């Protein structure tokens, strides 16, 4: 009477991490987490500017000697830079492949599609990411390579920061970029937790609030630096 049971679902040859959309999103989330840690570390370092020129310049130089004597001068800094570069490239790659999949998924647009639940931050992730990338390029040309700095002095980081940020359009661009970064971090941190499956009911709500709080604090503290330069507190 009994027929053999239906065969158990075969383990199909599913695509690897990079081939599936969930995998691409996980790459975005993990590289985003690396970049988030950098943003926090960079902020904590930047805030030392309020301790004065000597302390700030010593910190900047210390970045090159940290890890000694195991690491030679600047080695660890270069290792971090390479990790960050790889993370940035992977983050952008994941953004492009998932965005292309989504554009491909709706060939005929709606006449109108209203939004209810989404946030401004979520809707501006792609443009915001592009703006942040362009700002980082400018930022490196200003403070790392010195090409766009009004009076670049190698090694005198404090001077370079004050010289550049006392030009008000530069300070305004810095502040605007940090607002964009804050929006990106708000949706990014919450979204990364969701993508990696770390959001669990009923805590979804507070995680969203926590993401907003973290984004506001980070963006606010970054913005305090150009504001302090413009106000003449740092000179």
């Amino acid at each position, binding site marked *: 009477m*009994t027929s053999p*049971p*239906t*065969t*158990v*679902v*075969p*383990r*199909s040859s*599913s*695509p690897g*991490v990079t081939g*599936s*959309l*969930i995998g*691409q*999103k*996980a790459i975005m989330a993990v590289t985003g987490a690396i970049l988030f840690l950098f943003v926090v570390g960079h902020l904590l370092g930047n805030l030392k500017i309020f301790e004065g020129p000597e302390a700030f310049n010593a910190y900047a130089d210390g970045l090159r000697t940290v890890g000694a004597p195991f690491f030679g001068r600047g080695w660890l800094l270069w290792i971090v830079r390479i990790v960050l570069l790889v993370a940035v490239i992977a983050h952008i790659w994941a953004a492009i492949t*998932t*965005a292309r*999949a*989504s*554009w*491909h*998924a*709706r*060939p*005929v*647009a*709606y*006449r*109108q*599609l*209203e*939004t*209810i*639940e*989404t946030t401004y931050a*979520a*809707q501006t*992730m792609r443009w915001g990411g592009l703006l942040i990338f362009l700002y980082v390029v400018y930022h490196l040309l200003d403070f790392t390579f010195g090409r766009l700095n009004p009076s670049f002095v190698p090694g005198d980081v404090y001077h370079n920061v004050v010289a550049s940020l006392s030009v008000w359009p530069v300070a305004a661009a810095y502040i605007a970029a940090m607002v964009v970064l804050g929006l990106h971090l708000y*949706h990014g941190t*919450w*979204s990364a*937790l*969701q*993508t*990696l*499956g*770390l*959001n*669990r*009911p009923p805590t*979804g709500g507070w995680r969203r609030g926590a993401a907003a709080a973290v984004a506001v604090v980070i963006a606010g503290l970054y913005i305090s630096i150009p504001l302090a330069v413009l106000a003449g507190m740092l000179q």
Partner: protein
Amino acid sequence: MRLTLHVWRQAGPALPGRFVRYDLSDVSPDMSFLEMLDVLNHQLLGRREEPVAFDHDCREGICGACGMVINGRPHGPQRATTTCQLHMRTFPDGAELWIEPWRARAFPVIKDLVVDRGAFDRIIQAGGFISVRTGGVPEANTVLVPKRDADLAMDAAACIGCGACVAACPNASAMLFVAAKVAHLGLLPQGQPERGPRVVNMVSQMDAEGFGACTNHGECMAACPKEISIDFIAQLNRDYWKAKGAA
């Protein structure tokens, strides 16, 4: 009630579509949205014009057959309501309504407002089931289910597969549908033996059907007539990585 309708008319899958304007009078506020379309079709037939094709079955909000985008909102402006359960009293007299089909590559238009949701069926075939020897009904308390799991599984099982989540998603992603189906079975003891392969196979099929990538906007949850939470998407991701780790 008087209404101005702009209805998407498309004669076939590969043919171009366009909005056609219809002025309708004598609409009762107590009519459902589909009954209003029935009235329109009755008039069109009377004029020997082609009636508007739309999907419908139970008209009780439980089968998932009906669905159209009304003024930019899948299933219309009322939350937790399918198109068949939406009543014309929701709209003001003289309202102008733009009616479109679900728009996604994975849901090709068959005709007018009817789309082919076979992609959802193929996702279910890829793993949205449990394999059992069928026979007599087992005694209900043989397998105990914790109350919390039973409630959550029921919340997920409320999905009627209408496709509003895909329609509402800015990315045309099917994550909420797949998440609901995976969670519904994954939360219950009967779903455990195939839990890992199920999630991997259903996600693979979802990608193969050409749905977009979820970016956690949450629009699906707002459009869902059964108010299924995106918490299930986090659980889908969690299950997916567990299964990938075990494989």
